[in-house]
C-alpha cells in the first residue's frame, strides 16, 4: 500500500495545514455548477437523446441533429467541469469523451454488430480512465475480459442470429433499410430518456453539490502515515493488489471462482438444451414448443446433439 499512494500521502504530509484551506476552496468551487444549469443540461440531453434514438418517423438526418445536440451537451458539461478541474489532465477529457460518445452510439446504432463494436471502443476508453487512476491491472483485465471474451461471445451470437434471421424473405426485404424492425424502432424513447436523464441529473447534482468528505479524507490519509512497514515490500501496484486480494479477500476470491464454475456449467446446460419448434415437428399441435432437458444420450462423446445435424448413433430422448 505504501508505494502506490506515497505521493498522495506525501501531499497530505507536506501540507497538513492546507487541508482546511483546501476544503474551503472546494466549498467555493462547488458553486461552479448551479442546479439550474444542471437541470437545463439534463433536459437538453434528454431531448437530444429522444431525437437520436432510432424510431418511427425519425429519418437519418433528424437523428444526426439529435447526435449533434448530444455532443453539444457533452461539450458544454465538459467546459463547465473544466473550470473546476483540479488534477485531471487532457487524457481524462479524451478518454471520457470517447467513452461517453461510444456509449451513446451503442444504444443508438441500428445494427447490433456495430453496437457491439462501439462497446469495444467504450471499453478501451474506460480502460484508459482506469490507467489514469493507477489501476493498470484492472485496465488490462477489462480489455481482456470485456474486449476479448465477452464481446467475442456477443458478436458470435449476433452473427448467429443474423444469419438465421436473414433467410426469410420478409426479413430480407426489411433488412435493406438500416436493420431489422426491432432494431430500427425503439420502445418508449421519450419516457426512457426522461427517466434516464432525471436519474443522471440527480446523481450529478449530488456529486457536485459539495464535497463534505474532503477534510475528513485528508485527516484519514494523514492518520494512516505511521502504518507499520509491510513484511514484504512489493514494488508495483499490481503486486500490491494481488497481495491485498489474497490477504484480505481470500474467501471472496474463492467464491468468485466458484460462481464462474457454476455459471459455466449452467451455460453449457442451457445451450445444449434441444428445442423443437411447432413448424418443424408435424406431430405437435397448436403451435406449442417443446424444450427437452439436456440429458446425456449415451457415453459416446460424438453423440452430443447438434442442431441441424442427424446423428445415427444418437438415441432418442426418453421424453419423446
Amino acid at each position, binding site marked *: 500500500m505504501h508505494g502506490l499512494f506515497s505521493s498522495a500521502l506525501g501531499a497530505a504530509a507536506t501540507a497538513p495545514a492546507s487541508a482546511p484551506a483546501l476544503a474551503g476552496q472546494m466549498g467555493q468551487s462547488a458553486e461552479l455548477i448551479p442546479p439550474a444549469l444542471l437541470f437545463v443540461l439534463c433536459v437538453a440531453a434528454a431531448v437530444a437523446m429522444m431525437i437520436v434514438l432510432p424510431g418511427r418517423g425519425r429519418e437519418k438526418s433528424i437523428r444526426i441533429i439529435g447526435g449533434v445536440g448530444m455532443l453539444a451537451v457533452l461539450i458544454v458539461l465538459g467546459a463547465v467541469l473544466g473550470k473546476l478541474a483540479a488534477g485531471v489532465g487532457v487524457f481524462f477529457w479524451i478518454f471520457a469523451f470517447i467513452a461517453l460518445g461510444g456509449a451513446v452510439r451503442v444504444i443508438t446504432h441500428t445494427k447490433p454488430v456495430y453496437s457491439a463494436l462501439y462497446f469495444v471502443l467504450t471499453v478501451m476508453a474506460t480502460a484508459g480512465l482506469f490507467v489514469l487512476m493507477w489501476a493498470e491491472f484492472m485496465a488490462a483485465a477489462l480489455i481482456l475480459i470485456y474486449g476479448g471474451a465477452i464481446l467475442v461471445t456477443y458478436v458470435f451470437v449476433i452473427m448467429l442470429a443474423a444469419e438465421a434471421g436473414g433467410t426469410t424473405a420478409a426479413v430480407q426485404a426489411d433488412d435493406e433499410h438500416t436493420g*431489422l424492425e426491432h432494431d430500427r424502432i425503439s420502445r418508449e424513447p421519450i419516457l426512457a430518456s426522461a427517466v434516464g436523464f432525471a436519474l443522471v441529473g440527480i446523481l450529478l447534482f449530488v456529486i457536485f453539490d459539495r464535497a463534505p468528505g474532503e477534510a475528513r479524507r485528508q485527516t484519514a490519509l494523514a492518520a494512516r502515515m505511521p502504518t507499520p512497514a509491510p513484511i514484504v515490500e512489493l514494488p508495483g501496484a499490481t503486486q500490491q493488489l494481488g497481495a491485498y486480494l489474497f490477504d484480505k479477500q481470500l474467501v471472496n476470491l474463492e467464491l468468485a471462482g466458484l460462481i464462474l464454475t457454476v455459471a459455466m456449467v449452467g451455460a453449457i446446460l442451457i445451450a445444449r438444451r434441444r428445442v423443437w419448434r411447432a413448424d418443424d415437428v408435424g406431430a405437435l399441435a397448436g403451435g406449442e414448443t417443446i424444450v427437452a432437458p439436456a440429458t446425456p444420450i449415451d457415453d459416446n462423446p460424438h453423440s452430443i446433439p447438434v442442431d441441424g445435424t442427424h446423428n445415427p448413433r444418437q438415441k432418442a430422448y426418453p421424453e419423446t
Partner: protein
Amino acid sequence: MTELALQHYLAVGAIMFGIGLIGFMTRRNLIIIFLCTELMFQGVGINLIAFGRYWGNFAGQAFVIFVLVIAAAEASLALGLVVLLFRQKSTLDADVWRELKG
C-alpha cells in the same frame, strides 16, 4: 481532490450508467439489452475505482474484480438463454415474448 478529481470520474460513471439505463429501456434487441447492462457495469466500475483511488486503498479495485466476475457469469448465462429463446421464435425481438407478462 488534489491528486484525483473524484467528482469528474463520478460524473463520467453516472452519465455512462444513465446511458446504459436508457438503452436498456428503449432497445428491443435481446442482445443489445444485455450489452446495455454491461454499459451500466462499466459506469459502476469507474465509480468504484475512483473511490478506491480517492481513499487510497485497494477495496475499489477488488470490488471491480468481483463485478467483472459477476458480469462474465451473467453474460455467459444470458447469452445461453438468448440462444435458447432465439431457437424457439427465430427472432431476437424482445416484444415477441410479450406473452410472458401474463
